[in-house]
């Protein structure tokens, strides 16, 4: 049983839950907003992409930790 492998798997596995839920909520709200006001879709889209990048960054931090555990 190699703890290093398990640690790396758990790091990214658990770390991807939060951002996954967050991005799903973001996209849902953005779609809802576009549905209510299709004219503002350009603005809503650019702000959504920005917010999704912020949320995704947290998943990337978890991925970097997993990679460091595995390869260093």
């Amino acid at each position, binding site marked *: 049983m190699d703890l290093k492998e398990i640690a790396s798997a758990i790091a990214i596995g658990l770390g991807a839950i939060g951002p996954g839920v967050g991005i799903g909520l973001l996209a849902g709200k953005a779609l809802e907003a576009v549905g209510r006001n299709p004219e503002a879709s350009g603005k809503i889209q650019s702000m959504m992409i*920005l917010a999704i990048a912020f949320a995704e960054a947290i998943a990337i931090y978890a991925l970097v930790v997993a990679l*460091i555990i595995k390869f*260093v």
Partner: protein
Amino acid sequence: MEISLIPETIGHIYSLLVTNTLLTSWVVMAALIGLAIWAGHKPQLKPGKKQNFFELALETVFNFFVEVWGDKDKVQKFFAFLATFFIFILLSNWFGLIPGVGTIGFYEHIGGHEKFVPFFRSLNSDLNATIAWAVISVVVTQIAGMVALGVGKHIGKFINLKSPIDFFVGILELISEVSKIISFSFRLFGNVFAGEVLLVVMMFLVPYILPLPFFMLEMFVGFIQALVFTTLTLVFLKMATEAHEAH
């Protein structure tokens, strides 16, 4: 299958190490400078096809920035800085996908076993490079804030002695500035390095046909990361150069 977090050195200039990411960055810089000289040579008032194309590209980027910021003159002031970030990060991300980058190299003998060292490696898969981007972005934002608002007012955002609550908010803002460096660098590094690892693993498993959708994903991710880096720099510049009108 070898994956190394640290970029491999392939040579020395006197006592400075030359890593394969540094070599890649020189190639991308040379390509961009050559492209800029070729595209901007003798601009004319009535543009020909080539000049029209590059003007279209730059105008698309400019209009996108204006849509995010809202103020055309301010975007004009910072456009060279922001567009350079965007174009350089985008091209260095896409350069890492060219066949041969990361796969053509030589074998190095270290203490008994052999290690494969590629000649070129995607620039942003080097944490040094992404930290450099992040530090440049945050420092220029601070300087822009000081120029726009005055040194005293800008520092007054962070060291605020009006009331205990404002003081703590100032300290939090300071910590948040430092965390921006970390978040900028790790977002870009994580995306590009993880993309490289993904491609290596995919090509190791099934060398033909299967890696194609992953290459498309990597092209998309490279574009989005360049866009996000630039847009976030833009947003922080906007927040720094506008007077803090809360409370």
